């Protein structure tokens, strides 16, 4: 029982440390976009956690079966994923702000479907979970490669531990997203302005994505050049 709790706790520790804060803010805003529909926020949150869980599980399995070495994987991901993250967030942000529009020919995809893709609740959240899980910041790398992997190597259930770690990394973000959605829903009932606020949440998420994207680009491109 203890290794599972430890793995979960290591995940939570990773998530609440200051270093993934920028990414977590982006994730919370993305998950709570449908702010007046806690059920949709819950679905997105579960998808986000599933994305993280699957990523760490695959990564853990690859390392535990010694297909790759820890230093090679750790350094590759830290070097390249964080560089990819900035431009991706920026583009998604501009897309949410309707600055960029993807014109998908109408005969292949219906207008409704196009909107769902843009809102990209469950699928988008899952992908976000995968991308954020792969962008290791130093503390995440220290805890995943330095604490979780050694723990998994010692444990008989080693291969399952990364799942729990993934859940742990997703929980704080999901709790915040759900908390905000539930808070706003009960709050807006008082004012009977349920739908008005939701019109802006997509824009707010877009702005947050652009800011966080620029932050990552600054940190992993510009600061390095200087």
């Amino acid at each position, binding site marked *: 029982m203890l290794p599972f709790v430890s793995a979960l706790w290591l995940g939570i520790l990773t998530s609440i440390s200051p270093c993934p804060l920028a990414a977590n803010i982006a994730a919370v805003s993305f998950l709570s976009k449908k702010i007046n529909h806690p059920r949709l926020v819950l679905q997105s949150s579960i998808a986000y956690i599933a994305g993280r869980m699957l990523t760490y599980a695959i990564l853990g399995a690859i390392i535990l079966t010694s297909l790759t070495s820890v230093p090679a994987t*750790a350094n590759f991901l830290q070097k390249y994923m964080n560089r990819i993250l900035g431009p991706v967030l920026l583009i998604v942000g501009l897309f949410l702000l309707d600055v960029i529009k993807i014109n998908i020919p109408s005969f292949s995809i219906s207008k409704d479907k196009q909107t769902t893709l843009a809102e990209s609740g469950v699928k988008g959240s899952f992908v976000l979970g995968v991308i954020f899980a792969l962008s290791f910041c130093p503390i995440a790398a220290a805890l995943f490669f330095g604490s979780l992997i050694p723990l998994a190597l010692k444990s008989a259930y080693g291969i399952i531990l990364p799942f729990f770690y993934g859940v742990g990394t997703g929980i704080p973000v999901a709790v915040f997203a759900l908390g905000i959605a539930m808070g706003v829903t009960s709050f807006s009932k008082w004012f009977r302005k349920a739908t008005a606020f939701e019109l802006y949440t997509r824009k707010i998420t877009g702005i947050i994505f652009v800011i966080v994207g620029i932050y990552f680009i600054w940190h992993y491109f510009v600061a390095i050049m200087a």
Partner: protein
Amino acid sequence: MVIKRFLALIILIVLLTMCTTMVFAASVKIVAYYFHGNARCPTCHKMEQYTKEAIEENFKDELANGLLVVKTVNVEEKENEHFVNDYQLYTKSLIISRVENGKEIQHKNLTKIWEYVRDKNKFFNYVTIEINNYLKDNQE
């Protein structure tokens, strides 16, 4: 009598030379490496700073006589890439290494710096104790 004294002197000289050569032969050095990459985070800067402060505060003599050396290394620079495999690095790390006659005898990854970085005293104690252990081994 004179011969005896002369012999005693010679023995003394031989002994003294042996002694000094022994000291010089075992040229020991402890190196504390702080490894980082191109992108630096606030916590990473803090760890580097704490490491330097802890060592400067507690190992003045060892630093002055060259027994202890502190090095900050960027592993993303071509000439330093080998450290990643040498020490199996997966994040910013503090490694202490014991070098005898130019050859590394043993090293240790002080992984707990991540745990203690929020508590300056604990961090200082941890680094000081670990380095002291390495220094002690050398004196034996």
